[in-house]
């Protein structure tokens, strides 16, 4: 997950909203008697309504705003009677400090919520087909619809969701057929890319990694799979091919992570095979490395299929996030 350098970005969203409203009440930008409504404030702050609700409650506690007969709150302590001023907050020139604005923007970007959502979406489809309700997701995460759309775009790009004929976002079901097709693509693309990459591989890097495999027990199959991509395959001078390989792998790694979270045993048996593979690459006869890679991919395909079968005995526990609707 990418984190912002801005320290305010780590602050809860509602506190940022509270701060902006409080400052603007104090400096008179928000005049006494102004009607404050959640929706327009959320729009100005580019956030969802949930943090705005919390911020308004906070300001109420502080005595800076008060309730009245109508919808929303009035600026002011409420000790004197004021006539409600109805004015769209979007038309007022609010003072939003640049660092707070940046923090709100950064907090709003999809990157901060993406990993969490991806995990839930990858995991649910093991249990069948689900519809994702965008408004529920925005509510659940406390982010705007814009952010949710970014998240959905990323999930779609990773092959985790698709739109059905009625334009609903659908996840799953994850099937053996999906996995087989992904691996079919891998076994066509990756050995071919490896051949193209051969003149461009930094061989000392590969040798260094190969030396670590024997001595560093912390190296996981997932790490080695990434290293194979970055150090070798992605060196192919055909960016479209490399992009295709990357995106084809995304669903598989998401599934792999989801299965491990469900408590499936980890696949530790492939370390030796990676060692052989890196050895062949380091020795330069790239054709044998490419052939070995093809064989190896058919082995991990079988492992993935076997894992998909055993997941059948895992029962649904604790339900799914509220934005996921079982179909």
């Amino acid at each position: 997950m990418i984190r912002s350098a801005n320290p305010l970005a780590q602050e809860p969203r509602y506190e940022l909203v509270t701060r902006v409203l409080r400052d603007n009440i104090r400096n008179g930008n928000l005049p006494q008697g102004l009607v404050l409504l959640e929706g327009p404030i959320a729009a100005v702050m580019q956030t969802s309504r949930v943090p705005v609700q919390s911020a308004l409650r906070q300001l109420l506690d502080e005595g800076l705003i008060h309730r009245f007969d109508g919808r929303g709150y009035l600026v002011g302590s409420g000790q004197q009677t004021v006539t409600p001023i109805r004015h769209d907050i979007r038309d007022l020139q609010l003072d939003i400090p640049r660092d707070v604005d940046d923090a709100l923007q950064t907090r709003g970007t999809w990157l901060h919520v993406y990993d969490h959502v991806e995990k839930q979406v990858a995991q649910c489809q093991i249990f069948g087909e689900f519809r994702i309700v965008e408004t529920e997701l925005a509510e659940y995460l406390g982010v705007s619809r814009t952010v949710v759309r970014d998240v959905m775009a990323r999930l779609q790009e990773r092959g985790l969701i698709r739109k059905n004929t009625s334009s609903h976002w659908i996840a799953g079901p994850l099937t053996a057929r999906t996995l087989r097709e992904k691996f079919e693509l891998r076994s066509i693309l990756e050995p071919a890319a490896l051949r193209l990459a051969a003149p461009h591989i930094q061989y000392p890097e590969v040798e260094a990694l190969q030396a670590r495999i024997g001595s560093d027990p912390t190296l996981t199959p997932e790490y080695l799979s990434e290293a194979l991509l970055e150090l070798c395959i992605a060196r192919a001078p055909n960016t479209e091919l490399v992009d295709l390989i990357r995106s084809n792998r995304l669903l598989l790694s998401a599934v792999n992570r989801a299965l491990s979270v469900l408590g499936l045993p980890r696949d530790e048996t492939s370390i030796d095979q990676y060692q052989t593979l890196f050895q062949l690459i380091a020795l330069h006869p790239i054709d044998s490395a490419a052939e070995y890679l093809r064989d190896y991919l058919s082995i991990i395909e079988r492992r993935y299929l076997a894992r998909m079968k055993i997941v059948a005995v895992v029962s649904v526990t604790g339900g799914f996030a509220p934005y996921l609707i079982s179909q």
Partner: protein
Amino acid sequence: MNAEPATHLSAPPQLPRRRLRVRGTSISLLAPIREQAEADLGFAVDFELLEFPTCQRVAAMEPEGYDVYEQCFHNLDIVWFWGALQPIDINRIAEWDNISDLAKQGGISKYASRGHGDAPVKKLYVQPGGFLGPKPSRHISMLPTIYNMDSFGYDTRVFGLGPDVRPSWSWLLDGRARGRIALVDEPAIGIFDAALAAEAAGELQFADIANMTIAEITALMNLLEDRRAQGYFCDTWRDGEEAASLVNGSSVAVQSMWSPVYGQFEPGHDYFLEAAPAEGYRAWHGGASLSRHTRGAELDMAYEYLNWWLSGYAGAVMARQGYYISNPVRAREHLAPEEWAYWYDGAAAARDLAGPYGNIVVRAGGRRSGGTHAERARRILIWNTVMDEYNYAARAWDRFVRRVRDGVAA
């Protein structure tokens, strides 16, 4: 502080009794087996008896809870790949060479049909990379023990009797039995009974019935749901006792069946017969495996128990409930000639025959449906199998079963 009374007799030595823990199903965990094993082996044998789906789940996820796991080959796809078991060294199995070709080759002869799906040999030998396959090696995943060719049972008053009546799997979806049909609730078994019925009835066709596609599974589940909504199914069952009570309560006219259930009918249910289906049988093969955690003295005991299973007595007990054993020669030594003739050779019973618990399960003159062992084994149409899309199929199946059991309206 008082000194110990000097006259106190020393307590008898409290040696913990040696104990072997066996987890399995009602198929093989029979009291007469446990009692004889304890007597012959000199250590305690604890049976933990569970229904199929639960048994499989806890065997996979809690392998520290047992030493020996008795189940079917098809669920090695779950339990083996979970990493719950350790390989069995065939050099430690005395009867290995006498185990039948059906287990070791996939058919009773070179030319016999292999059937669709996973014959036990496809999951028998441990292959490089931890996979299971048919290529012989010194290590196996499960010791083949009992097996059978399953079909369904039917009410002759509904479907008729005599040489012209040709039982077909399609009867499991037959309008004549509407409201009186039950299926076995185990997704790697019941779904095939339903699929065989759908294909035999001409409702659906499967490219490979033992490895259905998502579209085929969906079509099958839609068909079942349609029939369920029309009130075809009265129930599902999970073990022989439940199956027997459906017959004894006269609830079913046709249902999935296991062989021992025919011996559990109350008097007056002679009209409920075992089918020899025109299309062939759905077969299964059972066996015994070792937990990954078992070692040392427990591992030695486990091997003793495995060898005991193939030494004859257990095979004879199993024969009396209609199951075959992988090395029948030794079982024959423990069976009366009339018992062997009935169960293995398909001959008419020369006298009343008792089941595993001593009660009469076959009347004199009765004849086993389907004929001799060889005749039945040559007609294996499909083996119980965990399909590639098992996760999808099992969840769809569970939803269907829940609707049948809850009696959800259309």
